[in-house]
């Protein structure tokens, strides 16, 4: 048998692999990708890092400027003299942290086991109450990214469902659904969300929501997510319509595949790439939205921190007497880098996935 006569196997390259290859050619896009990964990892493991507790107030160090030496200090505990009650040790430990989940608590414990009360100096300065800005930026990243992720997912679910339904059903239903999207585009949702937040901030409503187990933050996440799905719906609809008439869908129908099978097995996998692109573009939008609302005092509330809230604290203390630039600069820098990376990566992903640009 002369197997050598067979033509060499040409390995197929899927659209995704092709796009990935093209994306890797852009150095800046890869840098953005790694930046996002790094920021996400740092945010997840913030409780483990040797930072000062984000809410530790040291009023005599109010507005201390950034300092770099010594880089490693033991942060002071102004209650060290007080008698420690054993079973209150936990409370003692978590006194200066926002409300934490189980895993975060465990991470904080490990952090104290490893580093004790040693920590990095306030290289980003201190705020009005003498709290460490570096630590607050890190803890703020957790909330800001969480908003981006959760609200982004909400918009993903709504947008994909809406768009694929409209595209798949087609006809008058599609027509109506898309007309509705057109109308929704010209509604200033920011104002409506602020109005709804006003209602939610009413103490009675807050209490009632907590009674049925919905935190204010949950409502906040959903509100923000529920308004950024329009573009996603449009794009998905277009993709579904063009997929619907593809020969392979026709073939599946001809072999007697059920509706559900066609949708989930043949159409959804082909939507993944475009959905990822628009997700990377939606996440910075919702993060910006959150920063906006928190900045206005309508979003995240203390003791939680987010970048928007931190920037707000910075703007509030602008006075001619002394320029506390680090209070604005560092949260803004974190926000700016994250948003820039996500935006840039999303743009490049979109280009990489566009077959029309493939020849470039």
């Amino acid at each position, binding site marked *: 048998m002369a197997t050598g006569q067979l033509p060499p196997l040409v390995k197929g390259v899927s659209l995704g692999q092709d796009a990935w290859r093209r994306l890797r050619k852009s150095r800046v896009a890869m840098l953005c990708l790694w930046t996002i990964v790094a920021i996400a990892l740092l945010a997840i493991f913030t409780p483990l890092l040797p930072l000062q507790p984000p809410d530790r107030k040291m009023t005599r160090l109010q507005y201390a400027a950034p300092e770099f030496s010594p880089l490693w200090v033991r942060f002071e505990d102004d209650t060290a003299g007080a008698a420690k009650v054993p079973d209150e040790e936990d409370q003692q430990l978590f006194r200066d942290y926002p409300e934490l989940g189980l895993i975060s608590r465990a991470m904080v414990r490990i952090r104290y086991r490893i580093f004790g009360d040693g920590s990095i100096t306030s290289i980003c300065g201190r705020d009005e109450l003498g709290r460490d800005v570096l630590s607050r930026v890190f803890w703020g990243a957790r909330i800001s990214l969480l908003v981006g992720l959760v609200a982004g997912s909400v918009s993903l679910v709504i947008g994909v469902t809406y768009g694929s339904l409209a595209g798949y059903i087609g006809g008058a239903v599609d027509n109506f659904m898309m007309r509705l999207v057109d109308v929704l585009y010209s509604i200033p949702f*920011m104002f409506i969300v602020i*109005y709804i937040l006003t209602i939610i901030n009413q103490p*009675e409503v807050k209490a009632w929501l907590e009674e049925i187990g919905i935190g204010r933050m949950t409502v906040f996440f959903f509100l923000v997510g529920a308004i950024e799905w329009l573009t996603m719906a449009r794009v998905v609809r277009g993709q579904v319509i063009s997929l619907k008439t593809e020969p392979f869908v026709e073939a599946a129908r001809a072999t007697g595949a059920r509706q559900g099978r066609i949708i989930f097995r043949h159409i959804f996998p082909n939507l993944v790439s475009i959905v990822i692109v628009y997700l990377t573009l939606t996440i910075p939008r919702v993060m910006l939205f959150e920063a906006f609302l928190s*900045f206005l005092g309508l979003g995240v509330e203390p003791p939680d921190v987010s970048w928007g809230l931190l920037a*707000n604290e910075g703007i509030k203390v602008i006075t*001619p007497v002394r*320029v506390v630039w680090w209070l604005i600069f560092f949260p803004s820098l974190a926000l*700016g880098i994250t948003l820039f990376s996500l935006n840039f990566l999303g743009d490049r992903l979109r280009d990489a996935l566009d077959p029309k640009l493939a020849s470039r």
Partner: protein
Amino acid sequence: MLGFIAKRLLWMVLTLWVIFTVSFFLMRAVPGGPFDSDRALEPEIEANINRYYHFDEPLVKQYGRHLWNAVRGDLGPSYKLSDYTVNQVIAQGLPVSMALGVLALAFAMCLGLVAGITSAVRRGTAADVVLMSIATIGIAVPSFVVAGLAIILFVFVIPIFPAAGWGSFDQLILPAMCLGAPYAADVARISRTSMLDVLSQDHIRTARAKGLSPARVIWGHALPGSLLPVASFLGPAIAGILTGSLVIERIFAIPGLGSHFIEASLQRDFTLAMGCVLVYTVLVYSMNFLVDISYSILDPRVELD
């Protein structure tokens, strides 16, 4: 054309009605009246207040009365700013916000177009790279960050502008620039792309071939065609500038509609907040409408439906 206008108007009225209805019932679903937070009132006074604001009527009747008033353009009294009606507050704040917004938009358009056209014409040069890098960063940075840094830089480090307030023209420049900056970045990117598109077309080659000066080719032949995508961006830009002015007005202590709206939201002044939402919706809606019409004028091929 007439059909288009009628259709759009119908949608706007429908949208406003939905927003009004939802806000009204949300507002009334909140337990307690607007004056509960004050000290306890005498029962007679409370009854009087309730009668004055028609709280003693059935909900449907109140709704009908409010809707009718709103249709006639009367948005009722403000809950928290006593002695003011919502209409008075809006009449006071709206012109201020409009002045700020128009200036910001003009700034965004001028700067964005100049930057975009420059970098398209000088494609690949250092100027192009620098301008587009600034634009990419400008899109990512929220306006309150720009404002914070600008205040530190131009008010305290190099004191050329007043920090805040309202009244004189130089108090308007810095806020308008901060408000317009992200949109200038957007306009620059959009106009660069569309300019490059137009520059590669045949009629530009013809214009060059017949010996027109480069300036004449760009300003007379390329620019009009490249303005279309910029015009279609105007709608989102106006909506964004209105939203952004919420933050900018607060930072610079400008007594515009945005400040009133945020104050109303923080103080739970529902009638005022609702009135502002309605005004903003009308503004954004009609601006989008105007943009669509201008689009069809700029490009006769566009059909309105």
